[in-house]
């Protein structure tokens, strides 16, 4: 100090050099720092709900097997912490050579809603809202326009002048919901199932708006599920308990179907209206139905190419 600045007043440099320029600089620096702190302050809030590991997690398709194992271990621990349930979160991948399709026999569906309930329980939906991926529409006879349906019917079913149209995700081959996602948090897998990475979803709800079948659901609040009612048999892309603020949808119960089992809604159906299978298997039930029954798809004119069929017999 002394050697570089000879022969000057020995008072403090701040007092000595307190020019207008310096004051302005200082003021702006303070302002800038304040703005920076304000800008990152949401992160402090986020840190309460989100661990750093969760925040730094990559997209599902870019995770290495080790990272996936860590993510799953973390999610299992979080479920244990929040819901007190010991769950197993698997990472079920598509079975090579399968393309899942669903068919519903509208001649026998009587709108009893057991599928809705089964979905609610199987997929760890929020208990307070009775959330479910399935909506059963009571339809006036003579139309397939699902906008004319009503979901508020009650009492004894079926009613004589109505038929019943269960609607859930149609797993479209041209899914508009996937097209609109700004962050690619939803995509179509090789077996035809459209999935969501709940940890990548930003909750913008574009997909919900884009879906012509009203098949997507938004988690307005943290799902409340009693410990005893948690379905411990979970999968990362499927029925693990979802975080608040993300969109979710029917996955054809991929945690069951990718292990060869039938979807929960199908097993619950007391009328036997639901049929599920692999359309690539020539001998499958579903192939026989598509070849031999009068088959309809919903909103065909939109060109979404659903993997979900309705038939009459």
């Amino acid at each position, binding site marked *: 100090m002394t050697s570089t600045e000879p022969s000057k007043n020995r008072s403090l*440099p*701040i007092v000595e*050099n307190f020019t207008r320029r310096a*004051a302005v600089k*200082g003021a702006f*620096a303070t302002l800038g*720092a304040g703005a*920076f702190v304000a800008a990152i302050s949401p992160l402090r809030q986020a840190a309460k709900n989100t*661990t*750093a*590991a969760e*925040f*730094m997690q990559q997209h599902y*398709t*870019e*995770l*290495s*097997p*080790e990272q*996936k194992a*860590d993510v799953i271990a973390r999610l299992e621990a979080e479920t244990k912490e929040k819901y007190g349930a010991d769950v197993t979160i698997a*990472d*079920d*991948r598509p*079975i090579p050579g399968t393309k899942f399709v669903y*068919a519903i*026999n509208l001649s*026998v569906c*009587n709108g009893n*809603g057991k599928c809705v*309930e089964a979905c609610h329980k199987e997929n760890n939906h929020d208990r307070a809202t*009775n*959330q479910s991926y399935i*909506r059963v529409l009571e339809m006036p006879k003579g139309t397939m326009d699902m906008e004319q349906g009503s*979901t*508020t019917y009650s*009492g004894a*079913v079926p009613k004589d002048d109505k038929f019943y149209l269960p609607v859930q995700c149609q797993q479209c081959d041209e899914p508009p919901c996937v097209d609109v996602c700004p962050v690619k948090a939803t995509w179509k897998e090789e077996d035809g199932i459209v999935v969501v990475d709940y940890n990548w979803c930003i909750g913008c709800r574009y997909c919900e708006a884009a879906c012509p079948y009203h098949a997507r*659901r938004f988690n307005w609040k943290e799902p409340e599920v009693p410990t005893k009612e948690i379905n411990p048999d979970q999968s990362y892309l499927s029925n693990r308990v979802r975080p608040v603020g993300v969109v979710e949808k029917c996955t054809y119960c991929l945690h069951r*179907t990718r*292990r*060869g*089992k*039938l979807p929960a809604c*199908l*097993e619950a*159906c*007391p*009328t*036997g*209206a639901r*049929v599920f299978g*692999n359309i690539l298997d020539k001998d*499958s*039930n*579903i192939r*026989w139905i598509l070849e*031999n029954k009068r088959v309809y798809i919903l909103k065909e004119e939109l060109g979404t190419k659903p993997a979900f069929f309705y*038939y009459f*017999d």
Partner: protein
Amino acid sequence: MPRVANLFFAGVVCLTASMFLVAVWQSGTRANLQNTRDDRAQVAQQSGVGLQPAKDADRKPEADATKYPVIIRKPSGPPRIELGGTDPQGRTGSVACSTCHSVRKPNLENKTAATLDEFHQGMTFNHGTIACYACHNPGDSDALRLADGSTVTYENVMTLCSQCHSKQAESFAHGAHGGMNGHWDLSRGPQMKNNCIDCHDPHAPSYPKMIVGFKPKDRFNEPSIDDHDHEGAASHDEH
């Protein structure tokens, strides 16, 4: 004074950097980072193969092995009639159909319960206009009979039903009627199916009405406001 501004700026930069480092360190310790992590991530990405669940290893061998069966539930056997009275020991009992019917002459003409003078009178019958002995066997009351007169057991009741309801039988054989449980993929597990009389009462076979229990409470289920809008829209269309 410039030095203070610079120091302040440096401080902010250091703070940011340290926050970033802490975040990375935390994720690193959680994830138990390895040197090869990036390489593996790339490999996984290219091949599209993720972590296989543990069950995969178990099920691979079975996939090539024999197929599991489709198990169709069967009735347990001929019906038994519960007796109203009790024996001296206080036990209730049940008897076979043949207990009475072997000593009574069959009335091959009878079609409804209303024309019976005793027994089976409360029974509802709504199955076309067929006679009792179209399906029941006058020669052996503990079995049924087919249209050609041959005997068929109660366990194989589906053979009997399929004589007339061949369309349903065909649909059933292809999974399009009657529902199922278990596995869609028979190389991984069996499938269970109902038989006709699990759902249909043979004497009044139309499927019963049901009561809707469970309803989601979403915006599509909000009461009446929506209906009101539709009415308004409809009246606008008329004008």
